């Protein structure tokens, strides 16, 4: 690997590490925001693996985050606590308990399995039909997790999950997601998926099965999403509606603002948007900026985020990074422009 290639992975990784280090030096009250940001990085990178590489919009990825969270949560709550907080839980789930790392691995496995199950039929679709179909997956997952008491707490928050996601676990989890995403996009499979994004007809003519490549990307995206969900549930008591439309919107906003065409865009978007979001969330309790106290009404963060995303979409539809990876100066390679490639009718 040349220095040039190395920079493509090292810069996003360094951003994650820098966030973690910053999170270590601030007060424990502020550290919660950094932990949350690192989880969001993992989720957005999982989104990027499918949406970024294939160019197909998916609203369904958060359902794999939810399934991962449910898996890791149900399997790590102590048994006696499960009998109290989740009385309807299936017997086998009550008696099965695993450790932190196993639960994360299982969360990733469940996410991948669910993505394959959903992707087998859905990856035939593209465009709007794919968007609505993945939305249907989100709706079904949310509906089932809300009412099915045999596999989780239903509408209640997950309580009693060991809080093992500290700053290190969050950071290493984020790095694992970044590493997998980068490794994937450097393999021939990643390249083939990107080829189908740029020109489906030419890709098909070169012998690429669009269906198979998208399915593979979807499965990896599901695995990372499940893994991120596992990290998330070990951080704070989650509720099913916290893993639904709002999270879908916020993570999509991060990906689009950062630039959905590159891994760097996913990481930068997650950090920038969650930074702004966290700032305004913190400001509802008042923050001091150079001695000037700022207090905003709650809900301001969401409004700022909505405006920011709309403005970025209008001014820079390819995101802050323009969908490019980090590149060292000199000898810039032209990168195919998504917007120009897809001539609107």
């Amino acid at each position, binding site marked *: 690997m040349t220095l040039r290639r190395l920079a493509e992975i090292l810069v996003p990784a360094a951003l994650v590490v820098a966030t973690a280090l910053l999170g270590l030096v601030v007060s424990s009250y502020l550290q919660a925001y950094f932990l949350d940001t690192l989880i969001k990085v993992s989720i957005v990178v999982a989104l990027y693996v499918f949406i970024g590489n294939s160019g197909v919009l998916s609203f369904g990825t958060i359902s794999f985050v939810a399934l991962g969270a449910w898996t890791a949560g149900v399997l790590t709550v102590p048994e006696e606590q499960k009998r109290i907080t989740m009385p309807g839980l299936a017997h086998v789930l009550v008696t099965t308990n695993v450790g932190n790392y196993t639960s994360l691995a299982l969360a990733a496995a469940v996410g991948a399995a669910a993505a394959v199950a959903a992707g087998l039929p859905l990856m035939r679709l593209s465009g709007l039909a794919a968007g609505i179909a993945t939305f*249907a997956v989100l709706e*079904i997952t949310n*509906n089932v997790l809300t009412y099915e008491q045999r596999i989780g707490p239903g509408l209640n928050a997950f309580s009693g999950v060991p809080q093992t996601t500290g700053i290190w676990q969050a950071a290493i989890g984020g790095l694992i997601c970044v590493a997998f995403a980068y490794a994937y996009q450097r393999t021939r499979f990643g390249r083939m998926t990107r080829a189908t994004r740029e020109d489906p007809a030419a890709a098909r003519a070169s012998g690429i099965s669009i269906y198979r490549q998208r399915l593979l990307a979807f499965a990896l995206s599901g695995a990372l999403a499940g893994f991120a969900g596992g990290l998330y549930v070990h951080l704070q008591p989650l509720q099913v509606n916290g893993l639904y439309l709002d999270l879908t919107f916020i993570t999509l*906003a991060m990906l689009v603002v950062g630039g959905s065409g590159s891994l760097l865009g996913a990481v930068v978007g997650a950090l920038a948007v969650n930074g702004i979001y966290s700032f305004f969330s913190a400001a509802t309790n008042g923050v001091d900026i150079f001695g000037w106290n700022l207090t905003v009404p709650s809900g301001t963060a*969401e409004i700022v985020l*909505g405006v920011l995303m709309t403005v970025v979409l*209008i001014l820079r539809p390819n995101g802050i990074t323009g969908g490019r990876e980090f590149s060292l100066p000199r000898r810039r390679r032209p990168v195919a422009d998504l*917007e120009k490639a897809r001539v609107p009718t």
Partner: protein
Amino acid sequence: MILGFLNLTWPVFADALALGGIYALMAVGIGLVFGVLRLVNFAYGQLIMAGAFALAYGAQWGLPNWVSILFCFGVVLALSVLMDRLVFRPLRTHSPAVMLVATFAVAFLLQNIALLAFGSLGKTAGALAQLQAPWDIGGVFIRKIAIIAITTAAGCLALLQLLLTRTPVGLHMRAAAMDFRTARILGVRANRVIGVAVLLSGLLAAVSAVLLTVEQTQVTYTFALPETIVVLAGVVVGGLNRPVPATLGGFAIGFAYGLLGGILPTNQSQYLNSFIFAAVIVVLLVRPSGLFTRAGGSVERV
């Protein structure tokens, strides 16, 4: 009783028809804008929410019903024109995916503005609640709102059909929906057809807001959001490209919702969303370009 063993009674049937009618109105509102802009307006539900809040304020200020309904129309129309000018117009040349995400952002924004302005409990729009009372039609008690919703929806759709098929601007809109570029070359004024489509879509949103508040008198920031998601699925299932398939799709999903919600026992109807969306996936797999469109028609553009 039609099918007694399924609990399917005339009132349930009428309510299902009414829900189908309201969903059909929303569907055609979404479909009209899609036709000319190639834009799936996820923020359509927030237009309806704004109208519902206008009705709630009308009730609070003690305005006569017809004045609050006018106020509701004004608010919804103003907001839809504003949305078109500020967001849709600058985004017109972008890809459908970018525009869909943008309307997602607008929906999120409007919802949170409503949350900030009106609180999480929202307001009550109870002025029209007496329409829930039943009418006695030959021994069968059918709620007034069901009949009003069915007739209003049928009337609006008939008027719209006349407008689309019998007036020059309707012809222009259909031409633009078919092929925008060619239509422009042939002298269709882009901004005019888009403006008319946005206005019509806003009108339909206002009508839906009035009809929906009769049933859901508590107006919160999530008002009409679940309905919009279902209608969007229905519209795509029906076929987005043309108003009639879109309307049929909206009607079908609303009717199915109302009917199944009425006849299934609670422990099954809580999974109604899963059934409906599973059906949506199946239909999309079999007919990705829509259930009510002619197969092998124009090239898929989205």
